[in-house]
């Protein structure tokens, strides 16, 4: 299945420009003219990334992003990458985007190539059309925003591990210590350009993150693993840094507290 992009833009000219541009390069595009419509689409369709204009009529892009993050369109798409499109300078809206849980913003005017690079950063590479990834430099028009930190749903964890709180505690602690070691070993492998070792470590990290439902970390490790498999060493360093950041932002003690709270609540 190909990468499917939801374009939320009320201006018909920009919308058509993005839609035809993406389609001509082999991506799938679905369009919405307002936030309400975009949320209806997310509820019923499988989408890999949302491009959201910030200045749309009615509910604006920031509100829409917050609603999606809050699970308004279903739990499965609450962690979908959302990239803002803005007419004002990125510096003006960056903090707002972060607060709304968006993953980055792209400044108008931009070319389709700028969008493609953003899509490459966020989407599963197995879903990219032929001739991609392009391995181009990062777009000047794009600014990453601090993505929301991984926070697995405590109910989901308790359900997965048969309400065994002790098991979850042990797994999280083992993971926290081991991931630290793995990341520092990755740094060394990166400096020594030891790609085979790097691939092996990142493979383990991906699997371990999957056990604990740390979706962002798992996805980022997966992207890095794919890049290494394909011999795309071009911007590996940046991806390793992204992975480190995603790990640093995980608040393990809060996750544990939430698990405990739900556990105790369930026993009442």
């Amino acid at each position: 299945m190909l990468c499917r992009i939801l374009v939320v833009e009320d201006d018909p000219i920009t919308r058509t420009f993005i839609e035809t541009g993406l389609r001509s390069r082999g991506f799938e595009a679905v369009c919405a003219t307002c936030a309400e419509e975009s949320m209806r689409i997310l509820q019923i369709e499988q989408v890999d990334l949302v491009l959201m204009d910030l200045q749309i009529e009615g509910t604006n892009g920031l509100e829409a992003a917050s609603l999606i993050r809050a699970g308004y369109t279903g739990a499965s798409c609450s962690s979908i990458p959302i990239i803002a499109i803005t007419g004002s300078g990125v510096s003006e809206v960056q903090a707002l985007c972060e607060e709304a849980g968006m993953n980055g913003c792209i400044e108008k005017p931009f070319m389709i190539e700028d969008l493609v690079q953003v899509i490459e950063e966020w989407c599963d590479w197995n879903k990219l059309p032929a001739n991609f990834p392009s391995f181009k430099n990062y777009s000047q028009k794009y600014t990453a925003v601090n993505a929301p930190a991984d926070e697995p749903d405590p109910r989901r964890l308790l359900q997965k591990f048969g309400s065994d709180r002790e098991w979850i505690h042990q797994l999280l602690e083992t993971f926290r210590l081991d991931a630290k070691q793995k990341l520092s070993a990755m740094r060394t492998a990166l400096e020594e350009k030891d790609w085979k070792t790097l691939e092996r470590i990142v493979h383990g990290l991906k699997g371990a993150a999957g056990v604990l439902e740390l979706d962002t970390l798992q996805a980022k490790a997966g992207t890095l693993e794919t890049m290494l498999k394909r011999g795309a060493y071009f911007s590996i360093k940046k991806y390793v840094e992204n992975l480190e950041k995603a790990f640093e932002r995980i608040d393990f003690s809060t996750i544990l507290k939430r698990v405990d709270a739900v556990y105790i609540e369930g026993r009442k």
Partner: protein
Amino acid sequence: MKVLVVEDDPTQRLFLQKFFEKYGSCDGAETGMEAETLFREALEKKEPFHLVCLDILLPDKSGQELLKQFRALEQQAGIPFHNRCRILMVTALKDLKDVTEAFASDCDGYLVKPVEPETIKQKLVALGLISP
């Protein structure tokens, strides 16, 4: 039930070990070498494992290679076909090539990561190791 989990990643190993402890005793091996020693010793003591969970990407050797070795060791020990241990591959590799190779070397099941405890449970039932 006596289980051996072969997995180099500590989080994933702990996950599987704790899971199997509910059904009996469970040993963990981090490397292929370690796994081979444990498997051989168990056979020599006449207390073989009932189930082995094998990861494919291990630091020293591949799980596919281990699988073949385990089956050869069982044959050498004169263990009849129906008494062989169950070997379940638990790996992130999902290419048809890997799956067919494992079944050609006589594995009993193949689970693709990430695995849910419920999925493993169903597999154990299907293999006749636990009751539904």
